[in-house]
């Protein structure tokens, strides 16, 4: 510590002498009446008002196309006829219970040939929002794979992940988390 201090002192002393030529001059200067700096007038952005800023908005490039809202919006209603399936923590593997539920769901979907089903994957609040979006998608895809194996055409099944954004139970314990790790079903309008 002392040695470091000494070294620092020596360095600082040297630097001070190096700087001295100029420093001395400035010391003398400060004895004289202090002259005003050239007036700095900031005419750049900081003085702009919010309405000025709005006018500076970068226009959308013509390459960006807004697609038709009607054509692209996916609207769905909860499928009350289809039962929710649940998952273990950080897993998208279907349990025996989940497979039983899906068999019943599949029967209804096969009977109602006109419907298109959206499978919505969800997660509990643990883990990051981003990673849970991916995990929720994997859950929905597990369900869809199984439904396809039960004879439902791929075109009738759509994946959507909500990650941890739509919990059914707002609690912070295992009971709440177990309810939130799920795949829900909706019918696409």
């Amino acid at each position, binding site marked *: 510590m002392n040695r470091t201090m000494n070294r620092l002192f020596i360095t600082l002393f040297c630097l001070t002498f190096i*700087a001295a030529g100029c420093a001395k001059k*400035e010391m003398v200067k*400060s004895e004289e009446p202090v002259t005003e700096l050239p007036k*700095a007038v900031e005419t750049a952005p900081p003085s702009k008002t919010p309405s000025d800023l709005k006018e500076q908005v970068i226009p959308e490039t013509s390459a960006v196309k807004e697609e038709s809202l009607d054509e692209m919006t*996916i609207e769905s209603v909860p499928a009350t006829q289809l039962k929710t399936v649940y998952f273990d923590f950080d897993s998208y593997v279907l349990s025996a219970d989940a497979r039983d539920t899906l068999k019943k769901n599949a029967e209804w979907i096969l009977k109602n040939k006109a419907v298109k089903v959206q499978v919505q994957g969800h997660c509990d609040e643990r883990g990051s*929002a*981003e*990673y849970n979006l991916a995990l929720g*998608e*994997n859950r929905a895809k597990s369900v869809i794979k199984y439904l396809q194996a039960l004879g439902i055409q791929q075109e009738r099944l759509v994946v959507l992940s909500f990650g941890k954004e739509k919990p059914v139970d707002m609690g912070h314990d295992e009971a709440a988390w177990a309810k939130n790790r799920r795949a829900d079903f909706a019918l696409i309008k």
Partner: protein
Amino acid sequence: MKKIASFLIVILLIPVLLRAEQNYLEVIAQGSKQLPLAIAPAISLGGGQDGEIAGTVGEVLKFDLTLAGPFSVISGTSGAGQSGIRPGEFDMAPWRAIGAAYLIKSGYIASGGTITVEFRLYDVARGKALAAKRYTGSRKEMRRMAHSFSDETMLAVTGEKGPFTGRIAFVSRASGNKEISVMDYDGHNVQRLTRNRSINLNPDISPDAGQIIFTSYKRGNPDLYRTPISGGSVARISSRIGMNFTGAWSPDGNKIALSMSKDGNPEIYKIGTDGKLLARLTKNDAIDISPSWSPDGSKIAFVSDRLGSPQIFIMNADGSGVHRLTRSGTYNVNPSWSPKGDRILYSRLHPGGFQIHSISPDGSDDTQLTTQGRNENPRWSPDGRFITFGSNRGGKEAIYVMRADGSSQIKVSRSGGGDSQPVWSSRR
């Protein structure tokens, strides 16, 4: 001895470091010796007193420069040299007497809705003005004028401007739904950018601070949208089947790295700012998300669970040379590469929840920066000296800022809770 040594060092450093300004901040940060900076109350330069301007200017300067790092801000300086702000118009001796190394003087003129605020930064020992700026604008711009001079003060003392005129875009649940909002970095002037009552996530700001990209469920599917930071038209730029999420502007502003699941599972792609597909960067059965560019645009840090659990990886910007960065912790996410290129922030899941870590891009020197509550989604200030992040330590989710070394953690959200996923724009 030690005390005298510290004192002497400070005295000796002043002339030396004012000449070698570039190295100044680093010296201070390592020795934790802060230089006393006095902020004189703003005075009227004509047209009468205005308590709001005086109070606001003083409050903003104090907040910015206390967070800044190189300074210990001296308050309670009434009585010392109130008259005039220009060199020669006031007596420097009282400021010297209270031990100030730096002094900020300011004055204002208010006429109608327009105000002019003028600032001076002085080196007290030499009696010399280091920076002088005058700002004119509407009353609403009052805070921004003061932030702007805080940036200038950092420039004069450290050789690099501060980030205090930058804004923070974030996810706000103030309306009940997750919408994108933007605020000054200190939590003031909140403006909502989306009102679609859907779920809006993962904002990222273009390097020129003009545009924001984010993921929204507004049309049912998680698609990527782009909107000017000042509000206005919203363009959908990627609506490929499956998820279009965790978008990140490239440092040159010409491209976006984005995770999409259109080819079966989340992979990272490069797209143009108009949404045009440029390249696929990852290809495997695992989840690949959350890209973050190195400042030179040559590399991308990202999250992958290809080895079982989510970890931070680095690849070249063309997808080659993938290697794992984080080697401890079982769940590491949200990488953010520093603007200077020397550090990568990330969130690690500890038994009690997420904490923020900082690691060197070569995998060495992994340091935990937070301990209180749960803390995640760290992002750098544009100058790399500060970090903004989301924390629930106060009981509710809020946006916080701190210095790059984890010191001076302070809440900036002023809402009743539900603020998350902040990102700090470059200065205006």
